[in-house]
């Protein structure tokens, strides 16, 4: 059905749209339909050559020169009169299905020109050289199921309409915040599924024996997470440290008897058993590992999309040609965007055309002092807050009233959230005092300072929590639950005061025309902070991802309504790809890495508490895995290989060092390659400029000679120009080929750029252009 479609493509093209082969290569600068078809014919030819494996040399007759071996493409029915179009169709037919679809989609022709005709053509067997009928149907079926799976995924898209409304009004910058929120939601959903399926569900189905004196439910639990919730499946302490078995319960309602890992009991079940400690350990480990892989992959993809080798030169051209955001559809927003672009263009013009004024030594010193003062303020306030938290967390309010004691647990989270809310405002004031010229430097400095604050606060809290109280894991879990909740409540308050009331204030009192700007960076950092807390807490509170999911869900709707009512898009140019890459990197490196380092240290070296939890009698949590491997080895001596591999790979840090070393070497190599390519690009650019100059010079000289002597000079002109363009084209092609081995996308741009620049510069010498293209 797809093969025949391509065959009818040519008929459709021939019949309905008689394309005049444009003899003038300049029309649409070589982008006429004929030129597009030529270009895609060449591309399909290259693709076919690449896809076919080289046949053995001995299969060729001796007389065949190596350069004209078409790798089996002599079977093509190449009639001399067959036009380019038919050859393109022929090429397309001989490609594999996925290649063909990709080529067809990528051709900048209209659908009407690519459309199939309704008549079915029967395919002769020779049309499918490689597959039998069955294989063909299997491939078609697989592709259909892949398309249906993609459609299903696409239909599951969350919040499509809401995101479109936001982007229609504010553009791509503010949209990136909401997309980031959606990404975090999926991470938490994945974590929730994994922990729910492997940890929460089995334990909920087999509840352990609970200690007496459980408190009843009072409303405060939702805020503090303690009380009624502390003996539920929510926290670490609830989980059993034995293997869950099913049968003992069914025999006359006998209580589930606890088994330690070594002893046997009389009611050994024939049903499946579930080793809880092992499941707990492995689930957390595997969940973190998969999250790490997904994060690193999305970070590298985002980095690849946003990284550009050569950034400096074409600011104005980029601003004019690339900055219009087609997503914005609301009329007032379009007007606002036009105003912003106009302002930015005027500023850029003034900057570019002005001589850069050098600062005197006095001014430099002054600026240095101002920067130093700002940094001192920031670091000083951070240290002060950290010390305050340290002393505050040391003190504990003990009272007779149980409710008050419970409520006092909320004091520390409130203090920390308050600090997280107020201190960034102080940092903003310091930045305003410093008055940075470039907005991106300003954003990076702000991110740096906020990060410093949050990392030191979290670091102090981690140190404070470890190993203090009996059953400290549940306590840590509860603390993290409280922190997460308080963070949410304070974000709500901040939205209310910072955005809603501030807008009313600025409109009514300050009489400003514009609404306050939505600060994307600060909001994204808050999201990252919340996610760090969630990742820290998964080990101690397996249901924390569920809490985070509910929080993110509510946050989406609240932020969306607040943004629509109260804010406007940022006025300064906001580089979306770059900032998205920065945020994903921040999510991966300080946030996830910090959380996983904490969790790893906890699992590896800290003694679990002896009164609760699934690792009660073990020295470290890691012992659960080790013990299981030892048991396996005991039961089945053949698996000693596994045990030894486990001890070498997992316990020995040497392997990690070697892996990290290899990684660093590969990164260094790639960075050197990129540097080399940068140099090649600048050299090529120079050469192209020089070539243009040379051509102009030659043409003027030869035209002046032509004025004097008519006929012989004309032949001379064409010959000289041909040899110039041909030779230099060869040189550039060879240079471009070396790049294409190392970096395909960049090379293809440079390559086609050179090719087309020669096509157009050959306008002055029409006789040589066809010959020049044949050289290529």
């Amino acid at each position, binding site marked *: 059905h797809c093969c025949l479609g391509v065959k009818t493509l040519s008929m459709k093209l021939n019949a309905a749209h008689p394309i005049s082969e444009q003899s003038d290569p300049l029309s649409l600068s070589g982008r006429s339909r004929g030129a597009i078809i030529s270009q895609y014919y060449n591309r399909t030819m290259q693709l076919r050559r690449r896809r076919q494996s080289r046949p053995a040399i001995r299969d060729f007759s001796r007389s065949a020169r190596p350069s004209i071996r078409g790798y089996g493409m002599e079977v093509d029915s190449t009639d001399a009169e067959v036009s380019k179009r038919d050859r393109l169709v022929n090429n397309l037919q001989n490609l594999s299905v996925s290649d063909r679809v990709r080529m067809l989609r990528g051709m900048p022709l209209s659908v009407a020109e690519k*459309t199939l*005709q309704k008549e079915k053509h029967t395919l002769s067997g020779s049309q499918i050289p490689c597959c039998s009928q069955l294989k063909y149907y299997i491939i078609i079926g697989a592709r259909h199921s892949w398309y249906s799976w993609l459609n299903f995924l696409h239909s599951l898209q969350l919040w499509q309409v809401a995101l479109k409304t936001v982007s229609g009004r504010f553009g791509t910058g503010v949209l990136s915040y909401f997309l980031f929120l959606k990404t975090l939601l999926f991470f938490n959903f994945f974590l929730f599924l994994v922990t729910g399926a492997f940890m929460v569900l089995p334990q909920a189905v087999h509840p352990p024996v609970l200690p007496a004196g459980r408190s009843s439910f009072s409303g405060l639990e939702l805020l503090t997470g303690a009380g009624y919730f502390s003996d539920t499946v929510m926290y670490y302490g609830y989980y059993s440290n034995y293997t869950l078995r099913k049968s003992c319960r069914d025999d006359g309602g006998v209580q589930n008897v606890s088994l330690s890992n070594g002893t046997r009991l009389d009611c050994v079940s024939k049903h499946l058993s579930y080793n809880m400690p092992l499941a707990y350990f492995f689930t957390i480990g595997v969940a973190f590992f998969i999250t790490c892989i997904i994060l690193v992959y999305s970070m590298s993809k985002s980095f690849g999309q946003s990284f550009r080798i050569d950034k400096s030169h074409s600011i104005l051209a980029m601003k004019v*040609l690339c900055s219009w955001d*087609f997503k914005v559809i609301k009329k007032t927003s379009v007007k606002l965007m036009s105003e912003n672009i106009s302002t930015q*263009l*005027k500023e850029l013009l003034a900057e570019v055309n002005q001589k850069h004024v050098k600062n005197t030594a006095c001014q430099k010193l002054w600026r240095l002092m101002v920067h130093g003062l700002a940094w001192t303020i920031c670091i000083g306030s951070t240290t002060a807050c950290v010390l305050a938290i340290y002393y505050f967390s040391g003190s504990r309010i003990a009272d007779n009233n149980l409710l008050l004691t419970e409520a006092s647990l909320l004091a520390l989270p409130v203090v920390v959230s308050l600090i997280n809310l107020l201190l960034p405002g102080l940092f903003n004031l310091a930045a305003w005092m410093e008055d940075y010229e470039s907005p991106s430097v300003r954003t990076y400095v702000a991110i740096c300072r906020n990060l410093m604050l949050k990392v030191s606060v979290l670091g102090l809290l981690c140190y404070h929590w470890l190993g203090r109280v009996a059953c400290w894991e549940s306590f840590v879990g509860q603390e993290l639950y409280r922190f997460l909740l308080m963070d949410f409540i304070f974000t709500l308050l901040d939205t209310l005061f910072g955005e809603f009331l501030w807008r009313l204030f600025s409109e009514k009192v300050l009489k400003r025309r514009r609404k306050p700007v939505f600060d994307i960076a600060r909001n994204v950092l808050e999201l990252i902070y919340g996610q760090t807390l969630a990742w820290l807490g998964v080990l101690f509170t397996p249901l924390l991802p569920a809490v985070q999911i509910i929080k993110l869900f509510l946050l989406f709707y609240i932020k969306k309504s607040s943004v629509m009512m109260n804010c406007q898009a940022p006025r300064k140019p906001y580089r979306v*790809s*770059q900032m998205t890459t920065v945020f994903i990197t921040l999510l991966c490196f300080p946030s996830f890495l910090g959380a996983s380092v904490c969790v790893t240290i906890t699992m590896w070296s800290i003694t679990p508490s002896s009164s609760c939890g699934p690792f009660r009698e073990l020295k470290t949590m890691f012992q659960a895995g080790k013990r299981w491997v030892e048991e396996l080895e005991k039961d089945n001596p053949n698996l000693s290989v596994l045990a030894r591999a486990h001890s070498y790979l997992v316990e020995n840090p040497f392997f990690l060092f070697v892996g990290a070393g290899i990684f660093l070497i590969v990164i260094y190599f790639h960075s050197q390659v990129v540097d080399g390519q940068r140099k090649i690009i600048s050299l090529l650019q120079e050469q192209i400029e020089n070539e243009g100059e040379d051509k102009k010079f030659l043409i003027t000289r030869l035209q002046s000679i032509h004025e004097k002597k008519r006929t012989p000079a004309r032949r001379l002109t064409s010959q000289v120009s041909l040899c110039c363009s041909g030779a230099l084209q060869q040189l550039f092609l060879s240079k471009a080929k070396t790049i294409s081995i190392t970096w395909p996308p960049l090379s293809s741009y440079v390559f086609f*750029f050179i090719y087309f*620049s020669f096509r157009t510069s050959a306008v002055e010498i029409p006789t040589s252009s066809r010959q020049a293209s044949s050289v290529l």
Partner: protein
Amino acid sequence: MGTTASQLGKDLLSEYQELTFLTKQEILLAHKRFTELLTKDEKDLPNTRVPAERILTLPELKSNPFRKRICHVFSTSEQKDGSLTFEDFLDLLSAFSDSATLEIKSHYAFRIFDFDDDGTLDCGDLEKLVNCLTGETDETRLTTEEMRQLINNILEESDIDKDGTVNLSEFQHVISRSPDFVSSFKIVL
């Protein structure tokens, strides 16, 4: 070949999926929105061509300063009046979709910005482009002097072979340096 009554056949749907960058839901939504633009008589005719004025009532295009150029570029009519059939409409959405390649987007962007359709962006095209970007009001428009400076700077930065115009490869070269182009050159129904 084109849309007949109100339903898209399954074959046609999968064919459009292969030839464009749109998913099935997007094609069906496009079909729904397109048929809303048709009058009662036109709904029964196959392959109707909707005049540009009606296409420009779509909210996604209504306020876009490049709307007339977009209709002109994607139109396949002989009269060059900017009218679109359903397949032209799909072409439009496919070029502006999420999964379209940079090459397709830059190709169509070049054609949209080429106001006089001569295959290159010369000073006149660039001037019209900047005026579209900066809007209608007098305070946002650039003065003649600023415009001249701006166009000189643009040509200096992007015209590498120094012929006074920006051709497609030079345009693509500039575009490839801006990572935000792909995300901003999008229209979603």
